[in-house]
């Protein structure tokens, strides 16, 4: 909703102008005539060709399995014990089972994004079927993933629908392969997982195309507004509507209704998880509480007056949690209905009345406009009636702390292995620093409380002990900008070739960190300072907003939002990861003139060998995250994940030795550095992550100058975080010109030990 109450200039006078972008066709001139108009035919993609690519890829990057569970309980032959790679009743062994479970996870992840996209696209088809799909004049390559995968560049909602129909067909087919007695090869399971990942990425793009156009969100502006983020920014004197999830639809209607009613001064709308990022793309007045890790704590604080859920990343116990705090819930999605009575067809006032009367813990309302009205009306009334706030918002915690028996089970089940018991021990002596130290380290899962024999509300104790910390939690995050402009890609051509920009780092994934949320900010800062471009989306974009450097500035305030040297881009919510992958595709198209239509293999081969991009998913938790990363892998983009992600149970590892690839110009096999070394790798520590990411930006086609600079960073980072030279440095130096100046002497000695010899770089490196 765009609104101008009054404006007057020399030639124009406006009064009370309201524009609802959802209803308007911005028929901007289409300049992207490169792509053929979409036909009415079904989308069809040759899986056989993709499978061939997968097998190529997997011949360099071999699946590595670390079972999280040795059993299979999916059919009634079981439970089967597959440990030591034994076979189960259906003939599957532990190795294949791992690959199968990864495929299942990728299918679940892809389905989630696809269902999300489906919701928005169906909504558009109903409300504004003629909506034109584009990103304005600065962006010709509107849908790099769709174009490359399907040959279709969507221009209408119908096109989006058509691609989604393909996505849904593929997911169904892939899921079928996880059925007992279907696929019998880990390699084919992996090919399917890669396919599911790519399909996931495609769904991301469709979701973004749909919501950015329908809700008129930022279409690639680098300098989007800075938005408030942090528990400290929420004004609890106002009625507070908290939106949780990933789907912008209800949030938009709430904001529009508040606007319509002129209530923006009177109501606080805030968000948790990707929905927060999304509504901040729609209205710069909305506030962000934080990532998923803040959900449990914020609900238990009793601060929100009403909680509106859409879908994804919602705690499964949200209804019980909110009921404890007398917070009514409005569920809005088929995917998260919580057993609530559906009230979609009821009158708003009746719904408000029923929810006020406490007869129901919440309502399911699938009409988004109605959600807006009910949420706002209810919030105002609840605040007016001053619903009884829960006592323990400012509970006396010392007594609770003294109740701890020090059984240590909290520590034992804590995913982050935090010293909770130790905080209690300190706390008994009146020292709360142990608890406040946990704030920002805790991932907010609440397992400690479930295990506590005294049922102590540990999360509340942490919150209350961290009061000051929370009050000062007032940070800034740049609103999600959406896609990268074509012109930006063009501009970074030279600096990337010359190494001035040593790489593009994509931050993705959730907030399940093993060592606190600060590490990802430190990683980001390290690479930004070195001139890498960092593109963030989703929870991690929020997490890095929760960090201040020595000057008291967040990284968003310190680094620009341009896709350029040292730029830090918040592209948007999780689904905006499509833009990050899209930027790599655009590089292939804009620099190398590689045509995109139906050209997945060549584009991915180009990215793998020539685009120095690397994903970091330091806190990846969900099936969506594994789908996104696996998709990125198929596009040729390596990923580094955090220690917890070893529980995804599969990595793709290359070998640390010269590898044979093809020089496409001469069509000869050539020996070449292993770059990227791995396709997906799990680092043990921040130190390892730093070095691995620096190394993962190296590519076979680096110019000597570019390689020199990349290696300078690699060596510098390695020395900083390992205290020595990397053991594999000799593999990446092709000739003396590429040896970093600073440590040249030491390196020359090292090269001699390794019996290093110079070699030529391939002209056109390829694994095809």
């Amino acid at each position: 909703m765009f609104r101008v109450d009054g404006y007057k200039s020399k030639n124009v006078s406006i009064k009370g102008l309201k524009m609802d972008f959802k209803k308007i066709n911005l028929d901007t001139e289409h300049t992207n005539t490169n792509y053929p108009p979409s036909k009415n035919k079904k989308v069809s993609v040759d899986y056989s060709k993709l499978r061939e690519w997968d097998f190529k890829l997997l011949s360099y990057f071999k699946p590595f399995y670390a079972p999280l569970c040795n059993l299979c309980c999916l059919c009634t032959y079981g439970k089967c014990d597959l440990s030591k790679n034994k076979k189960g009743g259906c003939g599957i062994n532990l190795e294949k089972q791992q690959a199968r479970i990864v495929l299942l996870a990728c299918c679940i992840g892809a389905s989630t994004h696809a269902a999300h996209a489906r919701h928005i696209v169906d909504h558009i088809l109903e409300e504004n079927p003629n909506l034109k799909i584009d990103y304005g004049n600065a962006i010709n390559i509107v849908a790099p993933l769709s174009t490359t995968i399907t040959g279709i560049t969507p221009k209408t909602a119908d096109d989006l629908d058509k691609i989604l129909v393909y996505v849904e067909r593929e997911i169904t087919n892939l899921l079928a392969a996880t059925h007992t007695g279907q696929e019998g090869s880990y390699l084919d399971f992996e090919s399917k997982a890669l396919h599911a990942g790519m399909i996931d990425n495609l769904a991301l793009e469709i979701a973004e195309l749909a919501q950015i156009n329908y809700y008129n969100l930022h279409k690639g502006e680098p300098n989007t507004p800075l938005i408030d983020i942090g528990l400290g920014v929420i004004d609890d004197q106002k009625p507070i509507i908290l939106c949780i999830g990933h789907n912008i639809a209800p949030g938009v209607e709430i904001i529009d209704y508040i606007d319509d009613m002129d209530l923006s001064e009177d109501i606080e709308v805030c968000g948790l998880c990707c929905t927060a990022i999304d509504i901040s793309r729609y209205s710069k007045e909305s506030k962000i509480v934080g990532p998923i890790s803040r959900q449990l704590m914020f609900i238990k604080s009793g601060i929100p007056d009403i909680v509106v859920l859409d879908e994804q990343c919602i705690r499964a116990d949200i209804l019980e949690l909110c009921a404890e705090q007398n917070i009514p819930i409005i569920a809005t999605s088929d995917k998260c209905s919580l057993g609530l009575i559906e009230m979609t067809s009821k009158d708003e006032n009746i719904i408000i009345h029923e929810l006020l009367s406490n007869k129901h813990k919440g309502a399911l309302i699938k009409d988004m406009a109605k959600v807006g009205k009910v949420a706002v009306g209810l919030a105002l009334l609840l605040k007016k009636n001053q619903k009884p706030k829960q006592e323990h918002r400012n509970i006396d915690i010392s007594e609770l702390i003294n109740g701890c028996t020090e059984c240590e089970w909290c520590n034992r089940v804590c995913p982050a292995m935090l010293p909770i018991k130790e905080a209690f021990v300190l706390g008994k002596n009146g020292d709360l620093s142990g608890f406040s130290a946990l704030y920002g380290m805790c991932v907010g899962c609440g397992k400690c409380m479930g295990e506590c024999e005294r049922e102590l509300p540990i999360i509340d104790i942490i919150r209350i002990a961290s009061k000051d910390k929370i009050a000062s939690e007032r940070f800034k995050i740049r609103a999600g900008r959406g896609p990268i402009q074509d012109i930006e890609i063009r501009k970074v051509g030279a600096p990337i070739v010359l190494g001035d920009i040593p790489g593009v780092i994509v931050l993705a994934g959730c907030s399940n960190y093993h060592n606190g949320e600060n590490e990802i900010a430190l990683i980001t800062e390290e690479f930004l300072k070195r001139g890498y471009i960092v593109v963030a989306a989703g929870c991690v974009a929020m997490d890095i907003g929760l960090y201040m450097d020595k000057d008291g500035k967040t990284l968003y305030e310190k680094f620009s939002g341009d896709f350029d040297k040292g730029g830090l881009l918040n592209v948007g919510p999780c689904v905006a990861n499509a833009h990050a992958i899209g930027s790599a595709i655009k590089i292939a198209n804009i620099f190398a003139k590689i045509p995109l239509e139906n050209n997945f293999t060549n584009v991915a081969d180009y990215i793998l060998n020539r685009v120095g991009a690397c994903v970091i998913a330091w806190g990846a938790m969900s099936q969506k995250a594994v789908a996104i990363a696996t998709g990125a892998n198929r596009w040729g983009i390596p990923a580094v994940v955090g220690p917890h992600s070893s529980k995804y149970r599969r990595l793709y590892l290359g070998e640390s030795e010269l590898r044979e690839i093809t020089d496409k110009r001469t069509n000869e096999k050539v020996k070449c550095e292993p770059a990227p070394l791995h396709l997906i790798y799990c680092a043990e520590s921040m130190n390892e992550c730093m070095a691995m990411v620096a190394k993962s930006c190296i590519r076979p086609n680096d110019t000597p100058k570019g390689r020199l600079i990349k290696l300078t960073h690699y060596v510098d980072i390695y020395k900083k975080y390992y205290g020595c030279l990397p053991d594999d440095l000799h593999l990446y130096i092709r000739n003396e010109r590429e040896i970093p100046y600073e440590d040249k002497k030491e390196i020359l000695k090292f090269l001699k030990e390794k019996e290093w010899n110079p070699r030529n770089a391939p002209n056109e490196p390829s694994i095809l």
Partner: protein
Amino acid sequence: MSAWNPALSSPNQAIICSPKIAALTIKQSKNPMFVMGSLLNVIPEEIAEYAIKIAKLKHMTVVSTGGSNIMLSKLNFKPHYNIGAVELINHLKDSNWNGFCGKGNYDLICFIGVPYYIGSQGLSTLKNFAPHLKTITLCKFMHPNADLSYPNMSYDGWVIYLSKLVEYME
């Protein structure tokens, strides 16, 4: 004794071992490796000191992972190799791997200081896919996926177990 996180239970659990058994196991090994993980950087120095002592007593191949070299070099110890924990496990699970010295794969892999969850996963790989080698963990937390593991202990208990191990090795 169950795993630190009981959810990690599985049909085949590690045997809990005392410092004496650990010492015996290490002594009897022919080509042992000692993996020193990144936690050595963030826990008291004495743990790394014990680890180094143990490694030296048996002339074990010492592998530093995740940046523990920072602490090791602070203690003037140079590990034989710096490599990622996952990369190392990937080598170890291959029975035909030649080892870092070309003498073939190792027969006993001793772990300390690798973060629990990724350590547990790496041990799971070895337990299920590397029947050719044995694993032992000297960490503070019981590792169900190892062949032999120290029990869950307090920090002080851990130090005692490590010092006793050194004694038995001497």
